[in-house]
């Protein structure tokens, strides 16, 4: 029994790291642009497929192709902003969220069905030489690739933190998140900030997708599930705050795993959702967020 619990804890933390990584991108887009992109999971899915095909056709190791996937999805994110989300940001904040929800919902339909068409509905996983390797620490088995995934998540979070707190552009990002009008009056090119923030958000999703394609699996319809997880993490951490996203992700992963042990695997997802609803009801600003007006 102890072994089961310990293993669950570890698995939960590992997948929680992924939740955190996916949530980072979503939080960035929402924090800066005040746009809720429910197609975030689809961008993740595309990143996963990109890695998968790079590996299948050209034999490129996913960890090596990751930077390229990042850049490619950065570009794609920029395009999505310019063709779609830019128009959503023209409205004031209040309607912006609603509109972005709807627009990105349309995007979900488009991207998902195109994925089914071009990639087929089969589940894909990358199997490299090391993908089934694992460390064994005491009673617990830690798959190498998932641990690497957690590492990437932490690195990404630290990088983002550095970007936001120590760079000029990061200050501009934070200022724009707080109040875009004031930021514009300070001389910040708000449109450019939006573009970059959104592109980074998409790129982060893609990197998560790459990790998921090797550590777990990808198929065309995984998008919404991950988006929902990311949303839960973002709310747990505090809507609009970047701090503590990884922590919130780990927490979610852990809670899910423990619920699975306790109630049975089928109720894993439900536990997450119930936890989410409970937090939302009693502490809507999340663990780390400021209380909203």
């Amino acid at each position, binding site marked *: 029994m102890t072994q089961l619990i310990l293993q669950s804890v570890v698995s939960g933390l590992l997948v929680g790291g992924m939740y955190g990584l996916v949530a980072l991108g979503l939080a960035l887009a929402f924090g800066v642009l005040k746009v809720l992109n429910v197609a975030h999971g689809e961008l993740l899915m595309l990143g996963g497929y990109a890695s998968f095909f790079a590996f299948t056709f050209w034999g490129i190791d996913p960890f090596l192709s990751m930077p390229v996937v990042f850049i490619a999805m950065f570009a794609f994110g920029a395009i999505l902003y310019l063709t779609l989300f830019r128009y959503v940001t023209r*409205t004031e904040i209040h*309607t912006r*969220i*609603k509109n972005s929800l709807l627009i990105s*919902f*349309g995007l979900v339909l488009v991207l998902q069905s195109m994925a089914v068409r071009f990639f087929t509905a089969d589940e894909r996983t990358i199997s490299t030489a090391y993908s089934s390797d694992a460390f064994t620490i005491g009673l617990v088995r830690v798959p190498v690739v998932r641990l690497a995934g957690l590492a990437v998540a932490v690195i990404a979070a630290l990088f983002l933190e550095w970007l936001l707190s120590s760079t000029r552009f990061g200050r501009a990002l934070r200022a724009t998140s707080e109040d875009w009008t004031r930021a514009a009056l300070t001389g910040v090119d708000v449109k450019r900030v939006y573009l970059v923030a959104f592109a980074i958000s998409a790129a982060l999703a893609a990197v998560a997708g790459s990790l998921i394609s090797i550590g777990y699996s990808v198929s065309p319809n995984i998008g919404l599930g991950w988006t929902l997880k990311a949303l839960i993490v973002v*709310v747990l951490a505090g809507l609009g705050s970047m701090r503590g996203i990884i922590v919130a992700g780990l927490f979610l992963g852990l809670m899910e795993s423990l619920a699975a042990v306790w109630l049975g695997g089928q109720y894993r*997802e439900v536990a997450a959702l119930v936890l989410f*609803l409970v937090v939302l009801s009693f502490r809507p600003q999340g663990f780390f967020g400021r209380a909203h007006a």
Partner: protein
Amino acid sequence: MPRAAAIAAGLVVLALIIGIGFFSSSQHLLTLVIQTMLLAALASSWNILGGFAGQISLGHAAFFGSGALVTRELWLNGMPLPLAVLAAVAATTVAAAVVGVPMLRFREIYFAIGTLALGVAVFITAGNLWPGISSMSAEALRNYDFTGPYFVTLGVLVATVAISLWLKHSKVGLGMMAVRDDEEAAAATGVNAFAHKMTAFVLSSALAALAGAAFAYFSVSYFPNFAFSVIWTFEAILVVFIGGVGTIVGPLVGSVFFIIGRDSLPAEVNEFQVVLFGLLFMLVVLLMPGGLTEAGQRLFARISSRQPPDANTAKATKGKELV
């Protein structure tokens, strides 16, 4: 479009539908019309909450599924259909009232995410608790007659549209729309925002359950959790916006457009149908929030060389408020 003409058109369509129900023997056509009416009813019910009251619910399927589940279980186990439907709607209404209290405290995006979470949670739980497929008995299958489901679905649709119509022109409905447009301002003028949102939520859920009941009666066999699938929510929302959110006719027009469109696309294009509808949806949200209804109104006005009635308001509200 002038009131009298609209009513006349509605009656003609109704007569047409009734006629098809009685005289057509094409299973394909009957199925298509039933599907359209079902979607139209579900979409109209969503429209009450999303279009009139402005609360975007992404968990609508939970109530549709609930109505379907209860109806199906009771009816297949011997209860007469009308009682089963009544029980289903009653049960769902109570559930909606219970769920609505905490849910509606959330504003805007939290409400959308919260209802999404709820919808998914219910879907998964339903799949866990009722994993087996639900089928009509072999005998019922042999004697399957479209007429029953057809007219029941029609009845559901008519009831939903009638309630929507009444609501739109009632004081309650006006309050809902005030809340939709600006909740704070509405509250400041004495409108009980929570009560109105709650009414919309419960009503919308009850009608969704009614549609679910029709679905249960119509479907030969399916996995019970299918009725809880988020696909139903998505299709309803898609169709409402394409047709024209907040209008009575919008969900109806949208459903017809969607089902007919989907059915008549040639096979090769068929795989892209969702893509097409998705793109159309995005275009509508961005460019023509009034959907097909607005497009139709403008066209009609231009043909009869009258000033488009809502041109100024459309321009003024464009980009500001979509719902």
